[in-house]
């Protein structure tokens, strides 16, 4: 074969890039000595939570505690008993529905309204823009406890107290989301919008069709953090909701504690069911979660 006329593929194959750590021995890192115990400590509470939900009441009342007897059949029987007890003794289904509704509406609301506001504050010139931004920034600084009583009174005047509306309305738009998205909008090159405008798009059209599609990461951050926060919110539902039928999952769970305090297996079963949705989403979308939190820290 002629030396000349090298095959393109052969000559063009890039070498495996990347600096290889200059370690001669391939021994496992000593950091595992720190990480393994840490992982155990972090995960153990979950494990014990689960195990307890598979126990009988009597077993939970023995000291020292041990693994429940009769793996796996007895475990399954215990679990069926505990989980169904939890679900029948309190309207977890209803609470789950409530929480899902509230969180979904709040997340969508935030994504939509914070995008609109963030874009306007970043790119549109309108009278009072700076003042408005400063006001929004200021509300970010004020802790919830300062406003929670007046917000309760306002909700009372609006007839929202004890309804899902009270949980949704005040949280439809958050200063955090506006701030984050505004910062991000500012990093996008103006040229893209100008090109869209020349092509005939309206402001809204530009926002929806051109800008937002390239903003997956910050939108995910706002979405995920809002979702997590709304799902796990406790203080506001505590003071805004009294009737059982309008409670959220966390609030309902806390009332469940009051009624079933020492019925540990059932309580644990109830806790597991309330945490599964978020944990499941987290495990599936771990990357997004981690990225969201990391990037929010950078902006902070």
């Amino acid at each position, binding site marked *: 074969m002629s030396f000349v006329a090298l095959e393109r593929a052969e000559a063009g194959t890039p070498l495996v890039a990347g600096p290889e750590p200059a370690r001669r021995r391939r021994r496992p890192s000593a950091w595992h000595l*720190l990480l393994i115990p840490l992982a155990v400590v972090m995960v153990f509470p979950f494990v014990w939570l689960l195990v307890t939900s598979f126990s009988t009441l009597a077993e939970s009342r023995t000291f020292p505690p041990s693994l429940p007897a009769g793996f796996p059949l007895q475990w399954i029987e215990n679990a069926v008993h505990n989980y169904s007890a939890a679900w029948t003794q309190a309207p977890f289904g209803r609470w789950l529905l409530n929480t899902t509704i509230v969180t979904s509406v709040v997340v969508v609301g935030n994504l939509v309204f914070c995008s609109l506001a963030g874009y306007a504050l970043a790119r*549109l010139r309108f009278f009072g823009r700076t003042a408005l931004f400063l006001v929004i920034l200021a509300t970010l600084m004020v802790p919830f406890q300062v406003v929670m009583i007046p917000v309760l009174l306002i909700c009372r005047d609006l007839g929202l107290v004890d309804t899902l509306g009270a949980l949704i309305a005040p949280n439809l738009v958050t200063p955090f989301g506006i701030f984050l998205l505004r910062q991000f909008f500012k990093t996008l090159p103006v040229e893209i919008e100008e090109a869209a405008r020349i092509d005939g798009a309206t402001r809204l059209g530009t926002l929806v069709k051109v800008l937002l599609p390239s903003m997956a990461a910050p939108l995910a951050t706002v979405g995920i953090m809002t979702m997590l926060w709304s799902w796990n919110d406790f203080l506001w539902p505590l*003071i805004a909701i009294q009737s059982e039928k309008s409670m959220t999952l966390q609030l309902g769970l806390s009332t469940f504690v009051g009624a079933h305090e020492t019925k540990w297996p059932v309580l644990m079963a109830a806790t597991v069911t309330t*945490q599964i949705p*978020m944990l499941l989403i987290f495990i599936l979308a771990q990357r997004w979660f981690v990225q969201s939190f*990391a990037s929010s820290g950078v902006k902070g």
Partner: protein
Amino acid sequence: MAPARGDEAPAPARRAGRADRLLSSEHLTGWLFVSPAVLIIGLFGVVPIIWSVVLSFQSSDFVTTPTWIGLANYQALLKDPAFAASVRRTIIYTLIFVPVVTVASLAVAVALNRAVRGMRFYRTAVFAPVVTSTVATAIIFNWLLDPYFGILNAILVKLGIPAQQFFQDPSQALYCIVVMTVWGWLGFAVIIYLAALQGVPQELMEAAAIDGATRWRAFRRVQLPLLGPSTLFLVIWLSINALQLFDEIYVTTRGGPLGSTTVVVYYLYQQAFQLFNAGYATAIAYVLFLGILVLTVVQLVIGRRFVHYRS
């Protein structure tokens, strides 16, 4: 058809006035876009902030018409021993919580940054507590630390240490809360630090190695300083959250035993929704706000001096 004779020149254009500019599409569009945000934040943010200032100068029980009492609430606060105690507990809590989380998370993040195998598993394990709700965390730890049947006592007894009362012991309860919240917050801080560590370019560490730095010195003199902004952010964010501690207290100790876990926000809650002193509670909230503000400013000022932001 030929144009008619005597066509005048078109009328000179009128100069756009202020009204025109206001109504021009950009102003209108701008306000249109921000209107939902303005509505919600105005109604549920700005108005309540102003209202609560007023409320803090009033005496109100939610039902009857509030009466104006001027600075009485604040004056009472200054002399209220229960409030002072709650402040003290909150500060103790914060002073332990923030450094522990910050230092521990840095160590964990450094470890995670080095260990390649199993990184995903460790990250999941460390971060999972962050997605659990405060209520669930409290329930879990209530169970783990149950004085009679909790597994932690079982482990201690096995190690020859006497069983503890934990949440039921006035001298231990607050520290149990610390342990619980550290567990819940560690992952968040680790993620922040991990992102920052990974943001340090590989080349810088190589340059440091060539310049003669050992691994440790390169960490201390190159990576750690570059983590300054993250540390500052974490300290501020964690402090703000620590000062607002509430949920876990409500679910576990309800401020007890013997009031040993009544922190500021819990005291506020008691005042507002158990004793129906809305005005007084709001005054507490404002003092808390002031405290947070002052602390944050102090942290920022001190932090800025030691932290050099990379542009």
